[in-house]
């Protein structure tokens, strides 16, 4: 198998096997697998309507996946995407309220920058704790999620609450004219383009710049990288910052394209789903795009599974779980195959 295609071919074969296993699962649950496949196709990719449905759901997932995928190249397992989304969304809403009288473009740029800085500082802190205090980044980023959610809930119920939002406490509105629009005539909001562009830029950065090479070197062997004169600490801080900035931006998009305010709905699990996608895409920025679309499609199709086949909501989680396990397992098998073939030659 050509190495360059591996990030795409490995998940693909794992996906085929997943669909077979999932078929067995729905058959046991009392549904007809062929009908279920048809519904998944119809609900996720069958028509332009379902494509819009799928792509809208994929939008935040691309950005939250980057939060795990970027630091993973350094060998860090960061799972703080949820916290970065929440804090990014909160700060974006504050910036939006502060820029209420500004030009819409200025307001949107201000919100985007504020959210990226907030998310970036949060995950950057995780990176700093790791290198300065040797705190395990997985644990600290997980705990940061809870802290961020608590801060959000405290602020929207208390000091930042718009008194008009009686039974669903939220911040003030950022202003209808300052909301992010849609792509052309579609119902896909701009967030999708943000995600796509971010994945593309980071792929170029990782693949075609010396910075990307340096990141891979640190990830391969941090000590060797340091000995060869690379600023390992700086790289670690920068990469964790970029990961957090991506997830923070996802929070801004939730506020600017969907809610118009910050409230508890920011904590909707996009950060956690991003972890899954990052691993399934083997932390490859470009592979994240199809993976996010696939997972978005599964969410979209889940609607039809519930309504037309009487399958429980958890069915889509089962499918996600099967895919996740098989993609990870296939990676291990591939690594062993590669090692063996390396021996022979």
């Amino acid at each position, binding site marked *: 198998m050509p190495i360059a295609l591996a990030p795409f071919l490995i998940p693909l074969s794992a996906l085929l096997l997943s669909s077979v296993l999932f078929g067995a699962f729905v058959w046991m649950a009392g549904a007809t697998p062929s009908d279920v496949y048809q519904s998944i196709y119809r609900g996720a990719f069958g028509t332009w309507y379902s494509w819009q449905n799928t792509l809208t759901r994929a939008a935040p997932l691309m950005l939250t996946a980057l939060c795990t995928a970027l630091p993973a190249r350094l060998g860090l397992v960061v799972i703080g995407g949820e916290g970065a989304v929440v804090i990014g969304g909160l700060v974006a809403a504050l910036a939006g309220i502060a820029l209420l009288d500004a030009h819409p473009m200025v307001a949107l740029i201000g919100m985007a920058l504020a959210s990226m800085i907030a998310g970036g500082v949060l995950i950057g802190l995780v990176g700093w704790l790791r290198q300065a205090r040797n705190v395990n980044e997985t644990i600290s980023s997980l705990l940061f999620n809870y802290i961020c959610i608590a801060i959000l809930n405290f602020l929207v*119920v208390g000091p930042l609450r718009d008194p008009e939002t009686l039974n669903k406490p939220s911040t003030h509105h950022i202003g209808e004219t300052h909301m992010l629009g849609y792509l052309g005539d579609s119902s896909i909001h701009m967030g999708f383009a943000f995600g796509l562009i971010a994945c593309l830029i980071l792929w170029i950065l990782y693949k075609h710049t010396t910075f990307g090479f340096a990141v891979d070197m640190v990830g391969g062997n941090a000590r060797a990288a340091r000995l060869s004169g690379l600023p390992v600490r700086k790289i670690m801080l920068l990469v964790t910052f970029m990961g957090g900035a991506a997830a923070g931006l996802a929070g801004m998009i939730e506020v600017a394209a969907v809610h118009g305010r910050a409230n508890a709905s920011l904590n909707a699990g996009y950060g956690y789903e991003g972890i899954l996608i990052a691993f399934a895409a083997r932390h490859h920025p470009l592979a994240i795009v199809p993976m996010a679309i696939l997972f978005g499609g599964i969410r979209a199709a889940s609607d039809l599974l519930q309504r037309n086949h009487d399958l429980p909501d958890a069915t889509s989680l089962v499918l996600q779980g099967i895919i996740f396990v098989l993609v990870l397992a296939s990676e291990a098998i591939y690594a062993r195959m590669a090692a063996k073939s390396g021996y022979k030659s």
Partner: protein
Amino acid sequence: MSHLKHFQFNAKRRQVLKGLAGAGLTTVMGGFGIKAAQAAGKVTMGFIYVGPRDDFGYNQAHYEGKSALAKQSWIKAVDQENVPETIEVQKVMEGMINLDGAQVLFPTSFGYFDPHILKVAPKYPNVMFLHCGGLYDAKKHPKNVGSYFGYIDEPVYVSGIVAGHMSKTGKLGYIAAMPIPQVLRNINNFTMAARSVNPKITVQVVFTGGWSNPVKEAEAANSLIDQGIDVLTCHVDSPKVVVETAEKRGIYSCGYHANQAKLAPKGFLTGAEWNWSKVYLDYAKMIAGGEKIPNLIRGGFKEGIVKSSPYGKAVSAKAKAHADKVRAQFMAGDFVVYKGPIKDNTGKTVVPQGKAYGQTDIWLESMDWLVEGVIGSTKG
């Protein structure tokens, strides 16, 4: 449906009259074009829940309502559970319309309204969006949007009477999601009812910060019970954990949203329940009859929108008699809970002597205080 209370604003009424005079469309299309669609076949109704259908609480109450509808041969009812209050619900609503052909939608969670229903509804003027929460404002909202809600604080008051009679320690506990007006009104009703039985009673409140937070709910229940509380009730999406914990620890509980008697055969006293099957059937009949659907429907015991869970076997005859009497007063429509003098739990007079706020008073909808006798603070 004249027995339902319709709060139509003058502006709304004028709009309707204009419509009638103008093209006569309103009558022909009746119920937002639903009748025309119905002639072709079944009426498709879509229900959306924020949590699982079998949560023993808020979502189950709606699911039971939907199930009652599904028995009608001319209705096709589709539903979906665990739909978050994000763009996801917008997509689910559109999916129900575009893929299932739904003509009426019931997005049942409070947070589905703004911005989600308000964003989707204008795109589909022939579909009716009926939201549970009672937020409709004719001046601001699209015509194909409606809302319905019930005065569930009435059966909560009845629960408070029963709790007041059954408590031996005089300490009651309330586990609630967050200090928003709906929740505070329930806590205040429960407290005032219990204190009308025994003025020494206190109600300790714990806010968990979320609608579905089973771990915190269990912790709160255990800590309240450790402090000597002997009747526990709650206002969270699923009362399951609270009621089960109370039963396990051998104290009484009052339910909420749906009937939890099964979970606590010994200690369950009664509870405040929604009666959505009636509301949904009424809507279905209005649609079948081609009637215009009111944009706002509200009611309490009298209108059949809420009810009390049947008494548990522990409830004394005296408590039953008192509770039945209060319920009869609610049914007659002459019971006013918020009648002065009422002080809040910081000692400030909130309803002065001689002042009374009836059930439909809008002032009650922005409640931000806890009544005397509640231990806790609206700061959470």
